[in-house]
């Protein structure tokens, strides 16, 4: 029974990826990617990786889709397809089929398939990956840490340093997005005067004019509002 579910989920994944390949409408492609993430979360559950399935469903199918849709609403959801002229008529051709990437992909896929012939049997308890540390985690986690979920004990205690690195990476990504999307101007050689009031405005979406005009003479900034007044203040 397990095998049938495994087969079916893998086949569904392969078909979804082919569908993403053939799409020209990016909104449809993003929806198909959400289906792909959910199906892979189901596959993780079948393979007994429940924590990973939870994370993939929440992060991959949830937040990734929201981000991609937000970007598409800012950027536009069409893909440029090549135009073909026939006499005086110009039509949109279907997606071009470049041959060199196809050859590269086939050669790489062939080499990888040749490599999988040497892999240990799928699901065998004697595989090399199950030696070394995994037994120690499963057997000694009860006495040393005392919580039933071994993945949490490994993540937070045995490999806590990696989790610190992960939290820092996530924080750095937030800093990167804030710097890219906040509209801060670069400070050039003129120093403070070249900073401009727009820089401090856009740092806080939603706070608007409250930051500007504190040290300068009171009056209206270029948005036409008095300093200290929020834009559109009051009930929207």
């Amino acid at each position: 029974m397990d095998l049938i579910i495994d087969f079916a989920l893998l086949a569904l994944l392969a078909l979804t990826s082919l569908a993403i390949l053939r799409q020209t409408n990016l909104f449809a492609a993003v929806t198909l990617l959400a289906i792909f993430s959910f199906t892979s979360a189901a596959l993780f559950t079948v393979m007994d990786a429940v924590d990973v399935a939870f994370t993939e469903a929440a992060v991959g199918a949830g937040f990734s889709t929201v981000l991609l849709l937000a970007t598409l609403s800012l950027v536009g959801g069409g893909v440029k397809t090549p135009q073909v002229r026939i006499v005086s008529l110009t039509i949109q051709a279907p997606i071009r089929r470049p041959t060199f990437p196809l050859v590269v992909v086939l050669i790489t896929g062939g080499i990888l398939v040749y490599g999988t012939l040497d892999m240990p049997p799928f699901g065998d308890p004697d595989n090399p990956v199950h030696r070394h540390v995994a037994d120690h985690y499963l057997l000694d986690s009860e006495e040393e840490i005392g919580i039933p979920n071994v993945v949490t004990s490994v993540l937070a205690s045995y490999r806590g340093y990696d989790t610190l690195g992960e939290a820092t990476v996530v924080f750095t990504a937030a800093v990167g997005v804030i710097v890219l999307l906040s509209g801060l101007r670069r400070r050039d050689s003129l120093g403070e005067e070249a900073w401009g009031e727009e820089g401090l405005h856009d740092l806080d979406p939603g706070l608007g004019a409250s930051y500007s005009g504190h040290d300068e003479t009171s009056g209206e900034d270029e948005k036409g509002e008095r300093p200290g007044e929020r834009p559109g203040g009051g009930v929207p």
Partner: protein
Amino acid sequence: MRILGLYNYWVFVFLMMVGFYILISRRNLIQEILGLTIFQTAVFIFYISMGSISGAEPPILVPGAEGIVYANPLPHVLILTAIVVGVSTMAVALALVVRIKEAYGTIEGDEIADMDTASEA
């Protein structure tokens, strides 16, 4: 039985190659990000499949029970980190795409390259 195990690995290779093909053959920046995400998820599935044992339980210890086979928890931990790091890099990549669109007016790779060479000439 061996063929069934190999079927698993071959589907993962197929998924990776589809993601790789989208990445190198498409010019639209967001399509490239989608291809990269497919590639990444296929690698995660491959990794987790290597840690799974047939007939095993999820690695949550049942108190007082003997003789239960648990799945290997170590690949789970590594892939959990990798998923979160992957979505972080995707967020920064999408912020870059938004800025590129505002600077160039397009997100097609060849049009951006043409604009760059035209401005350098």
